[in-house]
């Protein structure tokens, strides 16, 4: 059947299971938008194309399905870049469709022409320039396949205006992906399993390091089985949070720069690290020269290029985490490791007293209070928390106890401020039944707050908690520690967030005392529409513990005043 490129585009997206796209129209993508009226796909109009990629990313992370962003050529396409890089760093399956000037005009510096495939080459898993309608079906199929298979990532498809306008025979079945060089399905050799099992069975002080790969692979059950059967405690990366319930007795919590002290000490004293779907980012290892010096290392990872990149490992099992663990589990022997858990308990006992912030209500409002109270109020529900980047992000990771995978969505690798609000929109669109919370700083929120209009236009129930300390808090914290408290360019003069919310017709609340936190959260949850909550917290509060950049993982800056109470006082 003969169709235009524009019609083929939407039909291919439908056949790939796409129900929603996030986009912004413009000249070079207009033929596609013209054909949208015949499609069942719901188009979410964003207010800035960066929002479109973050929404597609949030959609993908919340659901595991491929998220789709659409933009025009030139500035529309370049505005996608930050969101694409964010998705790339966190292995999120996103397909971006961009319009391009007519194929005859390419290279002529035509109006709104930009070489977006060139620009995004290093930050996409793969990208395409489509200049003929006949190439479109296969390209879209390949794009989705590449985006979601293996280690997922963003794929960009740049479609020239004439490719959208011209017609050709549409043959979905005949347009099967042809990717002779693409091998996403690798699996370890039998010998490597033997070596890994031997290390696990001989270890006295093993630790599992659990990352995002567990969630992407859907290996939560298998990870839990491994930990329980072999009695191995589990430390998590930021993006791994939720892969093992926070309440699980073997869950130590988050590791790394702002991980709890006992977690980092446990890693440093381990004799075996079992890294599952994580990539030894510098934020979790600290100084590599002093990292887990006495530990053998097993690395289970789908991307062979991650093996021995940062940390040299003894055994590498390259493959899908769930498949690898399923192969291993029947051969895992149950081992009593009470000696090791006693050591960890001792480490924990000391640290819990010193590091957990559960300050008494002294009239001040601390960010940790807000997060912790939010967790207590919403626990047990179908809640997705989407955070921005900075201090509030680390407090969220420390004080919100995630029990479910995909219940925390945050920009880890790229650390993209402005991520939270649009990503939350994507998450809410993907999971309309979920209770979606944005936790953002006053700095990052202002980077993408134009998407408040998208929330209203799409009538989405999203609760927004601004952790407002009047500073770019994490940068201020670094200035405090490493730049003699020289607070250059970190104090913020903020707008009246209440009036901003009002302008969009969004209900707002301002909270300045701890006693108001819970009533505000309760009221926000009861309201049927979106709510913006401005939590005015202590201005110069600091995230502890902290491993300074380049310091050894066990050399943490600890809380200066030991706090007696702990957050484990449920």
């Amino acid at each position, binding site marked *: 059947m003969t169709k235009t490129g524009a019609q083929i585009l939407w039909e291919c997206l439908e056949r790939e299971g796409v129900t929603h796209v996030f986009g912004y129209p413009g000249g070079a993508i207009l033929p596609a938008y013209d054909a949208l009226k015949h499609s069942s796909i719901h188009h979410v109009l964003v207010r800035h194309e960066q929002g479109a990629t973050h929404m597609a990313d949030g959609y993908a992370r919340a659901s595991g399905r491929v998220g789709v962003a659409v933009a025009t050529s030139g500035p529309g396409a370049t505005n996608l870049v930050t969101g694409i890089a964010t998705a790339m760093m966190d292995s999120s399956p996103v397909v971006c469709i961009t319009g391009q000037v007519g194929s005859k005009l390419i290279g002529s510096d035509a109006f709104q022409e930009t070489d977006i495939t060139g620009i995004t*080459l290093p930050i996409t898993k793969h990208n395409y320039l489509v200049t003929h309608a*006949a190439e479109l079906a296969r390209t879209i199929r390949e794009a989705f396949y590449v985006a979601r298979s293996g280690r997922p990532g963003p794929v960009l498809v740049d479609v020239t205006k004439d490719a959208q306008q011209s017609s050709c025979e549409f043959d979905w079945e005949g347009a099967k992906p042809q990717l002779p060089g*693409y091998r996403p399905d690798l699996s370890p050799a039998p010998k490597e399993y033997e070596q890994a099992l031997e290390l696990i069975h001989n270890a006295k002080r093993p630790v599992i390091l659990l990352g995002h790969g567990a969630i992407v692979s859907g290996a939560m059950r298998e990870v839990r089985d491994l930990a329980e059967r072999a009695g191995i405690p589990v430390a998590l990366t930021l993006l791994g949070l939720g892969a093992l319930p926070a309440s699980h007795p073997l869950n130590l919590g988050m590791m790394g720069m702002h991980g709890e002290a006992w977690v980092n000490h446990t890693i440093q004293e381990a004799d075996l690290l079992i890294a599952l779907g994580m990539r030894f980012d510098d934020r979790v290892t600290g100084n590599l020269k002093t990292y887990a010096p006495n530990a053998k290392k097993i690395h289970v990872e789908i*991307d*062979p*290029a991650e*093996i021995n*990149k940062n940390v*040299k490992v003894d055994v590498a099992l390259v493959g899908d985490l769930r498949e690898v663990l399923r192969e291993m589990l029947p051969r895992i022997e149950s081992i009593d490791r009470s000696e090791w858990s006693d050591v960890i308990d001792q480490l924990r006992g000391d640290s819990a007293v010193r590091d957990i912030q559960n300050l008494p209500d002294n009239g001040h409002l601390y960010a940790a209070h807000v997060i912790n109270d939010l967790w207590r109020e919403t626990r047990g529900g179908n809640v997705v928390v989407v955070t921005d980047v900075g201090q509030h992000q680390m407090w969220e990771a420390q004080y919100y106890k995630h029990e479910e995978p995909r219940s925390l969505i945050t920009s880890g690798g790229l650390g993209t401020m402005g991520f939270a609000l649009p990503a939350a929109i994507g998450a809410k669109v993907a999971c309309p039944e979920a209770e979606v919370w944005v936790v953002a700083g006053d700095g990052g929120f202002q980077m993408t707050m134009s998407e408040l209009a998208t929330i209203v236009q799409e009538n989405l129930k999203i609760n927004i908690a601004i952790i407002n300390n009047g500073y770019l808090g994490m940068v201020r914290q670094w200035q405090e520690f490493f730049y003699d408290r020289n607070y250059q360019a970190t104090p913020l003069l903020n707008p009246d967030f209440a009036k901003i919310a009002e302008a969009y017709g969004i209900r707002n609340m301002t909270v300045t005392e701890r006693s108001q936190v819970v009533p505000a959260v309760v009221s926000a949850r009861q309201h049927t529409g979106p709510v913006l909550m401005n939590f005015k917290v202590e201005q110069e509060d600091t995230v502890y513990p902290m491993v300074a950049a380049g310091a050894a993982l066990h050399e943490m800056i600890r809380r200066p005043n030991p706090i007696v109470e702990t957050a484990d006082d449920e």
Partner: protein
Amino acid sequence: MLNTYVVYVENKPGVLTRVASLFRRRAFNIDSLTVGRTEKPEVSRMTITVDADRDQSRRIEANLYKLVNVLLVENITNEPAIVRDLAMIKVAATHEARSHVLELASVFRARVVDVAPESLIIEITGDEDKIDGLLEVLRPYGLLEMVRTGIVAMRRGSKCSTVTAPTNTLAQAAGDDDVQYSV
């Protein structure tokens, strides 16, 4: 140490950029890169030499495989192989010096491919050391211009690389004359 890779890639627009960009962004320094056709029109072959230690060389291979258009990567550094570089050298050759230059060229089994009153162009094929050697002895006469292809390499013996050739590529399917084959 210098590693030599033979890399088979799909013959599609932009593939050279993808490979070059990979080396740049992972901070691996390319010593030499050549690319050309193979016996299969839909496949191009690159010879890449890179200075890398053992771990790095494995990661280079793994990263190359992450490129969707890369079909096969072989590190032939430690395998017996024929390695060739080609150079054309324009050397000053005045009347007095000419016979000396010609003699040197013949010792190196190089060919003279152009003769002008004041200069000669010498073409030499061989491994890099041989070419460097000729350059060294010609230098005193005055090197006016020089161009080298970079190395190409092939394993000795009957062992061949097998590449699963992409069949029915987009270009063929479209049957379009103005589709450009380039990397």
